[in-house]
């Protein structure tokens, strides 16, 4: 009898501890997700300045610039809609459009010499990195959270206690970011 009570108490304490750590991890997941949002917002704010300052030099790349502006508008409206897959797809397109803009700007020595543009380009690289690192951190935390729910004793209680697996930040199957970039070396 006494042994049964001790076992019950130990098991109960174990569940309480895992429950608390799961709550902590769930909040970390939410926070990490907000961090991605912050960085995406920063990128949206940065783009108008960037387009404005390179417009003069890059007259011949009108199409590229327009694509960036359009992708930004689409991403922002998707962000307001709040549909996650939509947001991921649109932000993916924006990343791709910006990558193209940065690659092309390498061909304009005047741009590279321009102080303001150089600062903006560094800002843009920084923001792109921030987005990818905050995504990486989010995925790390989500993996930890999900693993903790799925390992043996906890998989019996997790769903009863109201925990569900969080989704990783992945690119949609048909995302343009998944395509291998085409490099044209013809002169």
């Amino acid at each position: 009898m006494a042994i049964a009570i001790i076992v019950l108490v130990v098991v109960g304490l174990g569940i309480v501890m895992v429950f608390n750590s799961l709550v902590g991890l769930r909040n970390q997941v939410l926070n990490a997700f907000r961090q991605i949002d912050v960085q995406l917002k920063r990128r949206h704010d940065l783009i108008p300045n960037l387009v404005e300052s390179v417009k003069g030099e890059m007259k011949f790349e009108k199409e590229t610039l327009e694509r960036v502006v359009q992708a930004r508008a689409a991403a922002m409206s998707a962000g307001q809609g709040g549909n996650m897959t939509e947001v991921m797809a649109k932000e993916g397109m924006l990343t791709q459009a910006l990558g193209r803009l940065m690659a092309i700007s390498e061909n304009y020595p005047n741009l590279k010499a321009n102080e303001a543009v150089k600062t903006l380009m560094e800002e843009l690289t920084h923001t792109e990195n921030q987005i990818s690192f905050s995504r990486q951190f989010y995925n790390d935390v989500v993996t930890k959270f999900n693993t903790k729910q799925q390992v043996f004793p906890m998989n019996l209680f997790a769903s009863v206690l109201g925990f569900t697996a969080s989704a990783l930040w992945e690119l949609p199957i048909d995302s343009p970011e998944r395509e291998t970039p085409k490099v044209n070396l013809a002169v």
Partner: protein
Amino acid sequence: MNIYEQQASNRRMTAGIMAVFIGFFLAIGLGFDFFYLNFNPGAVPEYKLKPAGYYEAQGSGGGNVPYGTIGALLFGLGMAANSVFNGTGMVLRSTKARRAAPQNEKEKRFLNVVEEMATAAGLPVPQGYIIPDPDLNAFAAGINPSKAVIAVTEGLVKSLNREELQGVVAHEMSHIRNYDIRLMTVTATLMGAIALISDFSGRSMRYGRRSSVIASSRGSDRKSGGGLFFIVWLLLVLLAPLISRILAMAISRQREFLADASGAELTRNPLALVSALEKIRGAIMPTRAINNGVAHMCIADPRGSLIEEKTGFTADLLATHPPLEKRILALKVMSYQAGKSAA
């Protein structure tokens, strides 16, 4: 060893080092009282017949208050507290580091990289400092992740590209995440204090009066025992700086491999750190702004000495860092394995 074990072990070692340090001051103080102030509560008192007709113990134990012990203990405690509260500032001042200026293009890039790595590690953003030195080196200091600093030399900011800089900053960021910085900062500060006090005692020994114990003809057992004690005490005082340095180096060496590995985990790009380490290795000149007391905190040995590149017992004992060659090899293996699993 995972990160939590590493953090716990670092906390324990920090406490242990502070305890050893305070114990060391206790020993110095006791010895000082015993040999210089002639304080000896254990001595057999001599009884003398007083004119009034009774025996009274004549204190052969000198003064009754162990001033030296109390002073040294207070000093030791003060220094230990100081290492926690001011250690970061002291380390930074000793290298003449200044805040990185966002107006400067390269330094802005460094600050941005620091921010990115803080995001990747999920930590608060540390302050970025620049050490005015043309050599390539970097270190992190602080007591906890929310009050940490990362300092790099001017040369490093200038000659590394963005990805290599990311690799170096990620290495420092993992020192911060593992609480290596607390251990290293406390060690650096205490090592400075030990060097100071040992120097002081050494000098007072040269000029001081030590006659009371060794030369006194009172009590033969006391004489030989005192002599032996004195030699041990002397060795302790003289060798303390050396011993503390060897200790610091051993602590630091272990942690470099781990920081390399978890730094690569942050950037997911071990090869960037490899090429940064190769550049650092290529710049063999010593980092003059960084003195020996801070050597164990840096990403590569600032002395630029060849002992870092040697293997074997002497190198194991005296080097602050594992040979760069070994670290580069370990990172290359890591990237090969990552490439294989991805393919």
